[in-house]
């Protein structure tokens, strides 16, 4: 079996023309697929045990790193074997054990089954391949990168746990398993961002990430509940069987129901949280407080794409809604996030932050792709992005590692020409080219293109304003090229000049204050002689170089899948998954001049719409059959076939951005194509421009003050409310009501207390008076 076998035969499309996704009855898969999450789990447990039983030699033991790397590698191999054995088209269901299984009746929907089972279709395979593959590679990188850190075992424990959670998320055969993984990756993200736990900013960032994610999780949970009440199940195979028939759990049509609108909207909120889309994106830039391998794997390549995965996985549910409300929102938010993040990225100086914003921006592309009905484009972009963004982050990490935590692009220059930094520089260049979408030779070009082209192609009637989305994405592509090469031009080319950071990371100083910011101040780098002005950059070792090289190559090789089959390898996989949606607006010309799939042109067929006639309620207004083929025209790009011309247009935008970057930041010489004039690390022509645009630049540098804005409208009021509640609890509920009730008897007692003079005679008088009163009462009673 070869990869080429994975190319789908679009027979269903050709013949039926109405099938919107390929639903296949699942078959039982081999049990050993459970090893994919199982092995990393073993690794996590072993690392944890080493930590708890103090067998990690105070962090010097390399066993955790090699163990986890090996286990992740095996896990990858297992995934690969499974993939090769997989019969394309028919998903596998691998049952591990019963997790939650409750039944209150025997009828439909009267039981809740959420087992620890795995569901493997094209989408899962795609994700699992790069999760385990990249996981293993980055783990290897981290084995060197984290070498001198005390919490070695802790790091790899969480790292392995992350892969476990991600596997559950991707492979789970029901929404609850997905939720398990969803929160699990959130936890690992929390643990890894807060890895340098003595640093307040890291702890705050970790907390922020977790809490913002939780907001999304609530949406996901509610969407899950609504899915359950609507369909009576949360298991994918049952769920999609119903959705493909366009009915809910009780057999009623989903057309026009409020559930059809709200299930995708709620799930979407979850996706926004995890994939850092506006307005829940604020945690991702802060998440760069974590170690760089974490940023590379979790916050660039895998975890943040979980939102894309969720929407792709649930794509049939998103299509249930005739109006595609949720997909509209996804498209707009994705586009806006892409643009917003690009503007911020242009104004940042911290190269890792820039990469973070570029991640946000690219995630926005993916969401926009999902929104404009190209799951293929989105998934392919996820795939290519995973490689090149990992490359970029790891390169940044190498710089940070070598220059004592220095990440300011104004303080670094000319790494290309420094000894031992060539591989890093080349990897960086590859990554930058990919990110900028430099044509033909980069995978990023092809994947991004697919999305932009589809945005132009998708009719405005289907996704309102899709052309505008396309234009914004195009402009954003130019901006991306600018800020990407801004980094490259300033840091890697030009005169050799650097200023080390204030960290001692990686210099054998493995005492407790490795990462600065703790109570011992900045003693770190002084300890090894930097105090006298001689700082020696610490060139990366074999592991870092190897991984960088491999990833750089991988980024480039990721072009190839695009040319496998009619829709690329990824498209083929997607065809065998729930995420398949063949829009076919306009001629989807296969790249590299292969034959276009002429008959792939078909109407948009949201499920609810086409299911209506199937249930005997034909409606000529809503049924797509009313529109003859071609009535809904695909949009065009300025009158041209978008797919055909987009290659050139986006190339244009990309190169323009690159040229602008070269002009503003390029050094004197060939690297800036003759237009740059930078001679020092700190100064560039950009500073003048920045002055020219006035406060806008500053606002962008301060991330448009969104964090402050959230603080002002959310956190502060909530905190104030909390204080009010606390005071209310203390003063009103406890004070006035509870203690007030207790005050009544106390007051009574206080009133009566003076009667207790303590003198014997007082009591005696009282007693005598009492007797007297009793006598009088008896007298009166007997008299009457």
């Amino acid at each position, binding site marked *: 079996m070869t990869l080429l076998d994975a190319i789908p035969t679009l027979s269903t499309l050709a013949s039926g023309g109405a099938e919107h996704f390929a639903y296949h009855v699942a078959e039982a898969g081999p049990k050993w697929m459970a090893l994919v999450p199982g092995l990393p789990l073993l690794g996590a447990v072993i690392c944890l045990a080493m930590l708890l039983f103090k067998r990690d030699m105070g962090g010097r033991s390399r066993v955790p790193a090699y163990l986890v790397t090996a286990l992740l590698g095996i896990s990858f191999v297992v995934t690969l074997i499974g993939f090769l054995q997989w019969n394309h088209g028919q998903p596998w269901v691998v049952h591990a054990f019963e997790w939650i299984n409750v039944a209150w009746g025997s009828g439909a929907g009267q039981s809740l089954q959420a087992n620890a089972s795995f569901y493997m279709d094209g989408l899962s395979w795609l994700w699992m391949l790069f999760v385990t593959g990249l996981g293993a590679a980055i783990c290897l990188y981290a084995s060197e990168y984290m070498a001198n850190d005390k919490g070695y075992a802790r790091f790899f424990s969480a790292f392995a746990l992350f892969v476990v959670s991600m596997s559950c998320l991707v492979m789970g055969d029901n929404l609850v398993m997905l939720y398990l993984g969803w929160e699990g990756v959130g936890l690992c993200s929390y643990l890894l961002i807060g890895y340098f736990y003595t640093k307040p900013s890291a702890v705050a960032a970790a907390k922020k990430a977790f809490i913002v994610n939780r907001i999304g999780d609530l949406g996901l949970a509610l969407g899950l509940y609504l899915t359950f*009440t*609507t369909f009576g199940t949360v298991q994918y195979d049952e769920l999609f069987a119903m959705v493909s028939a366009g009915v809910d759990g009780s057999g009623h049509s989903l057309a026009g129901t409020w559930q059809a609108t709200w299930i995708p909207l709620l799930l979407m909120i979850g996706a926004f949280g995890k994939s850092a889309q506006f307005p829940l994106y604020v945690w991702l830039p802060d998440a760069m407080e974590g170690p760089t391998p974490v940023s590379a794997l979790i916050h660039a390549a895998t975890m943040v794409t979980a939102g894309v995965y969720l929407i792709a996985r649930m794509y049939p549910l998103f299509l249930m809604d005739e109006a595609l409300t949720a997909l509209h929102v996804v498209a707009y938010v994705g586009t806006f996030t892409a643009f917003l993040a690009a503007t911020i990225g242009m104004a940042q100086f911290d190269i890792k932050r820039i990469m973070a914003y570029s991640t946000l921006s690219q995630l926005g592309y993916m969401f926009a792709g999902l929104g404009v009905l190209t799951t293929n484009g989105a998934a392919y972009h996820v795939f290519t992005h995973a490689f090149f963004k990992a490359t970029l982050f790891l390169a940044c990490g190498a710089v940070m590692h070598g220059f004592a935590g220095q990440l300011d692009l104004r303080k670094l220059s000319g790494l290309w020409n420094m000894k031992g930094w060539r591989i890093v520089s080349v990897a960086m260049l590859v990554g930058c080219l990919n990110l900028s979408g430099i044509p033909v030779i980069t995978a990023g070009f092809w994947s991004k293109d697919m999305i932009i082209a589809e945005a132009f192609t998708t009719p405005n009637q289907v996704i309102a304003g899709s052309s505008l989305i396309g234009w914004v994405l195009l402009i954003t592509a130019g901006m991306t090229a600018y800020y990407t090469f801004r980094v490259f031009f300033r840091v890697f080319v030009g005169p050799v000049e650097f200023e080390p950071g204030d960290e001692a990371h990686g210099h054998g100083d493995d005492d407790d204050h490795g990462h600065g910011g*703790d109570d011992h101040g900045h003693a770190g780098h002084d300890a090894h002689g930097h105090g006298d002005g001689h700082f020696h950059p610490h060139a990366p070792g074999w592991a870092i170089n190897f991984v960088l090289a491999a990833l750089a190559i991988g980024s480039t090789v990721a072009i190839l899948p695009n040319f496998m089959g009619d829709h690329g390898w990824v498209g083929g996989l997607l065809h065998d998954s729930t995420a398949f949606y063949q829009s076919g607006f306009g001629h989807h010309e296969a790249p590299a001049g292969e034959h276009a799939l002429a008959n792939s042109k078909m109407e948009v067929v949201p499920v609810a719409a086409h299911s209506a006639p199937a249930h005997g309620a034909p409606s000529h*207004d809503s049924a797509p059959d009313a529109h003859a083929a071609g009535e809904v025209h695909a949009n065009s790009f300025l009158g041209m076939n978008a797919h055909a011309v987009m290659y050139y247009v986006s190339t244009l935008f990309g190169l323009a951005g690159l040229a602008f970057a070269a002009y503003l930041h390029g050094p004197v010489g060939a690297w800036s194509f003759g237009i740059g004039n930078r001679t020092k690390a700190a100064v560039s022509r950009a500073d003048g421009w920045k002055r020219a645009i006035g406060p806008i630049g500053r606002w962008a540098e301060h991330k448009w003050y969104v964090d402050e804005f959230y603080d002002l409208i959310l956190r502060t009021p909530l905190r104030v409310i909390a204080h009010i509640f*606390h005071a209310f*609890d203390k003063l009103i509920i406890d004070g006035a009501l509870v203690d007030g009730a207790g005050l009544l008897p106390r007051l009574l007692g206080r009133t009566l207390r003076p009667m207790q003079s303590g003198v014997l005679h007082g009591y005696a008088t009282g007693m005598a008076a009492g007797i007297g009163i009793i006598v009088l009462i008896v007298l009166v009673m007997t008299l009457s």
Partner: protein
Amino acid sequence: MMLWALILIPLLTAALIASGPRGAARGTAMLGSLISLFIAGLAAFQFDWGNSGAMQLGGSVPFLPSFGVEFSLGVDAVALALILLTALLQPLMVLGSFSAITSDEKTYYAWLMALMAPMVGVFAARDLLFFYVCFELTLVPMFILISLFGSTNRKKAAIKFFLYTFTGSILALAGLVYVAWKASAQTGAWSWDIATLQMVAQSMSLKEQSWVMLAMLAGFAVKIPLFPVHTWLPLAHTEAPTAGSVVLAGVLLKLGTYAVYRFVLPFVPAAVAEYAEAIALLSIVGIVYAGLICWVQRDVKKLVAYSSVSHLGFCVLGMVAINLIGAQGSLLYMINHGLSTGALFFCIGMMYERYHTRSMDELGGLAKKMPIWAFFMGFFTMASVGLPGLNGFVSEFMCLLGTFQSGAEGVGGVRGPLGFWFAAIAGTGMIVAAIYLLYMVGKVVFGPLKEPAGHGHHDDAHGHAHLPQDLTGREIGVLVPLAIGCVVLGVYPTPVLKAFEAPIQHTLAAYDGVNFEDFDGEDDDHGLALVALPAQGEAR
């Protein structure tokens, strides 16, 4: 027989401790609690799990035949699970107190052991009066534990705890006695058998049921504690000794929820159906309100105490959803909360023993000094946050799902009083829980190291020579069983869920004929239906 043993052995142990020498106190307590645990385990083996809805292992001894009072015991799966939780926590509490209690050990361990008997009695009682007596008897040992072994403000806390819960319980007694009186008027003979009274109570009119429900809730809601009557809890928790807090969170609060499950739900179904929304509203307010209050606490223990209020709101919410999932989630929540919050109190106690402060202003970054402690603290915090894979998730998830599907449309929905908005607003509690618990962990466990004055030169001064910096083997031994429990119940809750199914169905059978009128018929007030988008055709 074994239930009798579970009640009598702790009492016997307490008597032995009280009469024995001081040095033997903790050993005797440990032995007694281990024997109890063994017997509880034996009971679990003898229990016929296939017939988990039936009252088993029971027996009754007449006490006041003319008044119908019996010492009548018997457990179904729910009660047995809670007894197992009690029996599991008991040795851990004893073990966890070894270093914390250094004076007056005889009194301490004797009362600690004496506390176990009425707790088991509450869960095992099949006689209403016996139940009530045990319910109240728990107050006495707890009062003594708090007022003698608590921290600075202990007297006030103990008195408030006692008076508050006692006042509520008296009202509950009034309600219960009314039902018994009603039964005696019908049958001509006094009986306190819960099953008998249940039948009588169900036949009462709505008005009677409502009053009885109100009376019972007055007692049980204080114990849970539900939102407006919760203020004794933070105080009692904060002032109690570590084991006291653990048992308070672990078992005593569960007496309230268990009583709601055992009495309110099956006794007065019509009234519950009528007022379920109000109760749910109180729970939800409690969830969010207490959660936000947690966020501004300075005292770690108080924070966790308030979190109990928030958490038990979920528990009650799941219960008044009146469906299987909600009730299962709720009952599982009782056990899970006992494990995770109990463990959190243990962790805080261990920290307190080392630093003699619980203020977040004075502590910070303890992960550096006490990594193992930090691990457990983080672990149980995550269990408490409701992280999937750990126990808190399953129960919280099911409570919310039960709430959601209660009265929801669709094939997965069931008849019930609640619905979407209840789940949505209660769900914000998940976010709030993350906020305050991570806030706590971020302050105390992570961040730059901060120790109270006088602890800076730890190594030189040897201020706490008797306790090493990080956890001792004994302390790890206290936490590990709880951690294992958290993981097992999180990963494989199926057996527990299966066992709870029959008894819950039994309880919910009372609602078969009940009309949740607000959510039937035309008056469909799902807010969502109103905002559903127009059909596709119109959109174009």
